[in-house]
């Protein structure tokens, strides 16, 4: 069943990086586990066993997809929890080792991680429990491996770099970083201070190589609702032997790494979403990339005063992020919404804070360029017709908003001189 335009009441959804609709096959697989197969996967009776068997099958599908073992998969409530568990869990394991007492560990991350990673790192820094290096990002939206190599210190415990940036869709050199860390670790005589490598792959799973062996990661986070699975479920892949401890106290679920009753229905949905994804992945990447390239080309050609944010080639096949001059993103978003089109913006005004996207500012954009940004993300239900309508409506609302703003920006800067 296609979740097409008419199924959404004629509206056009171009915000697949925010979330995706649950695939029909996934939903069908999940349904019995809400009511008739409702057992607690930890219970020993038949109700529990039925749920546990289905969870095991989902775990196996996931393991097969990520090329790891079933025991390396920890189901969580989503990427935010996975990222918190990865960073805080590694730090907690480090601190538990008495030999490490008094020696503050070092974490390397980037300036444009998702807020759940950034805020975790900032908090650890503030508490005094870790020192953190934030790698810069360049105008193409990609970090430099050489910067990372230079940032490694004797006490570096963890490197955490996102695979694909959620706003601008740029791809980070994860496999290359994996090699650098492996090389560094192999030179160390004392295995106690091996650097662990974590990646937040939330936006990458549907579009990039996700073989954890090739990537060389010890920890990988992902979320189900970005790949046509249900919300509220995700996972953290933890390579066997990784020194990590649970951060939430309670039961011994998920190999004693994540206490709490298993969200079996969600997990089963995630397992199915992975199966569906795996089956069509290459075909869909090709189709979505063609549509996205068509969109970028059309927007840059037909709309004046626009720029594409982030590298044109090294970006997720489903992402286009533009900045339009003389308009503000929230206004643009709401005007488009009134036309039945759903997109996203890095403008401050939409996020409940007063400063614009830290990602766009990190790329070196001026505040007004960051305020005038629009993120358009495609998915498996996107059609060319939808994009044609989108660009036509975009032109219309831009014209309207640019009329409202007149030449204010130009005037402001000419007065400043």
């Amino acid at each position, binding site marked *: 069943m296609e979740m097409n335009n008419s199924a959404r009441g004629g509206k056009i959804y171009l915000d697949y990086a925010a979330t995706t609709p649950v695939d029909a096959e996934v939903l069908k697989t999940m349904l019995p586990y809400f009511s008739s197969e409702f057992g607690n996967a930890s219970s020993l009776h038949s109700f529990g066993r039925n749920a546990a068997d289905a969870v095991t099958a989902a775990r196996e599908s996931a393991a097969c997809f990520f090329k790891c073992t079933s025991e390396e998969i920890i189901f969580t409530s989503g990427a935010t929890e996975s990222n918190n568990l990865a960073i805080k869990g590694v730090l907690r394991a480090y601190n538990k080792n008495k030999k490490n007492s008094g020696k503050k560990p070092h974490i390397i991350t980037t300036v444009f991680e998702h807020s759940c990673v950034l805020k975790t790192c900032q908090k650890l820094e503030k508490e005094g429990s870790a020192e953190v290096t934030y790698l810069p990002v360049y105008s193409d939206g990609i970090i430099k491996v050489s910067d990372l190599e230079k940032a490694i210190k004797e006490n570096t415990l963890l490197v955490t770099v996102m695979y694909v940036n959620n706003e601008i869709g740029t791809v980070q050199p994860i496999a290359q970083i994996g090699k650098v860390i492996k090389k560094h670790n192999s030179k160390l005589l004392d295995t106690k201070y091996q650097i662990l490598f974590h990646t937040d792959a939330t936006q990458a799973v549907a579009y990039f190589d996700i073989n954890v062996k090739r990537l060389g990661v010890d920890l990988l986070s992902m979320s189900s609702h970005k790949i046509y699975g249900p919300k509220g479920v995700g996972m953290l892949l933890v390579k066997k032997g990784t020194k990590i401890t649970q951060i939430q106290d309670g039961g011994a679920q998920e190999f004693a790494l994540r206490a709490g009753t298993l969200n079996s229905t969600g997990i089963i949905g995630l397992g199915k979403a992975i199966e569906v994804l795996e089956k069509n992945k290459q075909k869909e990447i090709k189709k979505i990339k063609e549509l996205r390239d068509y969109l970028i080309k059309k927007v840059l050609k037909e709309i004046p005063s626009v720029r594409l944010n982030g590298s044109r080639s090294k970006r997720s096949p489903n992402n286009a992020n533009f900045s339009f001059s*003389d*308009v*503000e*993103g*929230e*206004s643009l978003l*709401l*005007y488009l919404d*009134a036309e039945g089109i759903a997109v996203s913006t890095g*403008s*401050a*005004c*939409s996020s*409940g*804070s*007063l400063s*614009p996207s830290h990602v766009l500012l990190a790329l070196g954009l*001026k*505040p*007004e360029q960051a*305020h005038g940004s629009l993120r358009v993300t495609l998915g498996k239900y996107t059609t060319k017709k939808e994009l044609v309508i989108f660009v036509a409506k975009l032109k219309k609302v831009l014209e309207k908003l640019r*009329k*409202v*703003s*007149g030449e*204010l*920006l130009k*005037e*402001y800067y000419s007065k400043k001189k």
Partner: protein
Amino acid sequence: MNYSKQVIDHFTSPHNQGVISDPDGVGMVGNPTCGDLMKIYIKVKKNAKRGEVISDIKFETLGCASAIATSSMITDLAKGKTIKEASKITRDNVAEALNGLPPIKMHCSNLASEALVAAIEDYKKKK
């Protein structure tokens, strides 16, 4: 964050939007860092009975939904008022007339009242 119906109405169909080519007063406030720039143009006519009256008012705004809505609303509130009356319009008057603004957007209503005050000051200077 939800906008009131009034905010959405003024945002989608702003009143008094545009330029006055021979204004008696102009006020521009805001900066691109915070994301909002606002400019108000006024035309003033002397009325025997009421004194100086704002006979026409227009605005241009680069900003979010509430920046546009507050600009539109303040032009409605000021139009036909005397200079003295118009100077007394506060940010709260603007926000109330729009049936409230989300707390984080209150600075937008401040910007609108500042732009009007700046236009009135400009008029007084030119007199």
